[in-house]
């Protein structure tokens, strides 16, 4: 089974490095000399926008051998649909993995946008279906539907989206959606249906994933926990006669040597807010976030205390916005960990590194060539895991 390795296109600007949290790419910080997209020229903004930097990240990761890029969606980010539609003609083979919450677009509209985007890109749209983290952010979006119902809605949304995709007439009457005589027009209906990467860690999410996911996507967690989670998804899917594949979203800090990698973490650590070292704060109903924080004994005093397993580091959220866990180590170590994940049944990765542009080249050129895939005879996993390999 081939393994698809994606990169991530930041939709919220980027830092120059993990050494300080100032966002200098994009306009989330004041635009000053040294800012990029927009930059300053003759004392004024130079007319470039964050999209121009996103285009650079897309091209850099396409050139370095990634199959596509995840475009995340949060209240403070640029929008993935807007970015993908704008960048459609600026890459050749690169897939746009669009993160979206089903509740915010009507499924018929989502189908039309997707099909037109498939036509604009030659079939390069991939979905990252997220069902929301709850709490104030969910209300910010105007969504009052509670956690488990959001997954029920996601399920209905995908039923309707698939129902209209190949033309109509399609009728549907659900709790959240109702359509009558719906269907895409013929040229749009000839497009391939986008692959679905499905996120969510709760039982409700895993039930919905079992029905709809091509790939069940998780943030990185210590491998035994990840293996157990995959096991649960596998069970639910098998009950429904489906066999999802597994994908992991991983931040990577890889350097020629292990020492260099940890030195980079140490440099960032000097700027970490001491209050953040006491432990996590909870603002929503995201089960994935709570899980992530449970793998570490808070409070902590130094970065290596966040290394939950060899090279599996749970402090990335202290150095940049986003999930906590990622891989830190030499090129060879990071490659070996990715191989172990392939051994757990993972056949797609969404990798990321800060800064995204330069790290795409670094990881594409130095880490990916070292991957060995399923050939694990010399690569016994360093941590035990319970899931079985083979059928996926």
């Amino acid at each position: 089974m081939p393994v698809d390795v994606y990169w991530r296109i930041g939709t919220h600007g980027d830092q120059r490095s993990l050494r300080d949290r100032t966002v200098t790419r994009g306009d989330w910080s004041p635009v000053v000399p040294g800012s990029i997209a927009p930059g300053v020229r003759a004392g004024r903004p130079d007319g470039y926008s964050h999209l121009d930097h996103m285009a650079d990240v897309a091209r850099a990761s396409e050139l370095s051998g990634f199959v596509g890029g995840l475009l995340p969606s949060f209240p403070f980010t640029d929008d993935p649909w807007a970015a993908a539609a704008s960048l459609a003609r600026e890459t050749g083979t690169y897939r746009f993995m669009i993160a979206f919450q089903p509740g915010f677009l009507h499924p018929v509209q989502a189908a039309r946008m997707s099909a037109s985007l498939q036509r604009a890109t030659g079939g390069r749209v991939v979905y990252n279906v997220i069902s929301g983290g709850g709490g104030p952010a969910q209300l910010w979006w105007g969504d009052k539907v509670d956690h488990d119902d959001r997954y029920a809605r996601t399920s209905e949304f995908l039923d309707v989206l698939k129902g209209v995709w190949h033309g109509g007439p399609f009728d549907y009457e659900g709790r959240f959606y109702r359509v009558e005589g719906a269907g895409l027009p013929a040229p749009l209906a000839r497009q391939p249906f986008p692959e679905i990467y499905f996120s969510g860690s709760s039982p409700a999410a895993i039930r919905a994933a079992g029905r709809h996911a091509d790939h069940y996507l998780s943030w990185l967690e210590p491998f035994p926990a990840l293996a157990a989670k995959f096991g649960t998804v596998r069970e639910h899917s098998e009950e429904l006669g489906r066999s999802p594949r597994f994908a992991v979203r991983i931040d990577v800090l890889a350097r020629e040597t292990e020492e260099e990698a940890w030195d980079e973490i140490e440099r960032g650590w000097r700027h970490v807010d001491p209050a953040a070292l006491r432990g996590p704060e909870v603002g929503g109903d995201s089960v994935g976030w709570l899980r992530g924080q449970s793998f570490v004994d808070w409070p902590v005093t130094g970065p290596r205390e966040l290394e939950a397993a060899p090279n599996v580091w749970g402090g990335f959220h202290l150095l940049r916005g986003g999930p906590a866990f990622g891989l830190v180590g030499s090129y060879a170590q990071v490659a070996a960990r990715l191989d172990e994940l392939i051994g757990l049944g993972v056949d797609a990765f969404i990798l990321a590194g800060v800064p995204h542009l330069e790290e795409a080249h670094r990881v594409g050129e130095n880490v990916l060539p070292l991957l060995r895939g399923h050939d694990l005879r010399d690569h016994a996993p360093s941590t035990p895991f319970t899931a079985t390999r083979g059928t996926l």
Partner: protein
Amino acid sequence: MTAAPEFVVAVPTRGDGARGDWGPGPAPRPAFLTDLRDGAYGPFDHLAQIGRAAEIAGFHGVSVPFDPAGEESLVVTAGLLRQSRWLRGTAGFHPGVATPVYAAKVAASLQRFTGGRLDWRLAIDLDPAVARAQGDFAEGAERYARADEFLTIARGVWHEDSYTYEGRYFQVLAGGFQAPLSDRPFPRVHLSGTSAEALDLSARHADVHLFDAADAAGAAGAEGGGLGALIADLGARAAGYGRAVASGLVLPVLAREDGAEVRAEVARRAAAGSPVPALAGSYEEVAAVLRGHLADGVTTFVLEAAPHLEETYRLGEHLLPLITEEVPHAG
């Protein structure tokens, strides 16, 4: 008083004649001719050509209508804006396709990406069967009440950073965009329709109210009629809210050098079963009609002319100079 007019090209959403994959294509080429196109082009290349033509021929914008049986307008508009510097892009959609917060969020990014060149055109008065196929079961005046709420919330989250609105159709709690998402202007809102509800919604929310040729003709038949009367009605309603709304006209057009060429083209289209625009004439004749509409208070002209690439160049080179030379650009 004559305001500086804006000229906009209507973008086709179901192919452009034989171009695109919406109908029979051009005749196949003999196999002995080398053809390097295979696989290199897709259905959006023709659309891209039309956008570039509008940009380079001096139009102010392109308008991509909401067409449930055609290409999706936000995707098309985003692509056309990305490849242009000056062009404004109007994306048509109806208020049931997304929550107002999400529609505004997508628009905020497109404004950021394009230097504020996005406009919205809300389609409200849909055919009921078409609406139900989009998952929209609202009917009658309710559609206008929903559109009102949609636009109120979309603007609310754009302009305030802690915005709460609990409506009948949509809600948002402590929402609102932070900088830099909110730094660009809210899209200019285009609305249409001649019912009292439609004109009143425009009075409250529209930047531009688009009339079409049928509106103009219908109004001309009424007592004291003409587009001028509709525009005056709209203006009075808007004044009641302390606002002003610009008026636009969507106009299929056929313009040629002289009457003989126009007649030949009309005959050719009639024979081919292609639609013949009501407004067909020499460049001078068409310009005279547009001047009449300008005098009525129309400031935006959305011109529909196919095949779009050639006709956009033609109108840009022959028609627009006749109007814009005598009306200095406001900018």
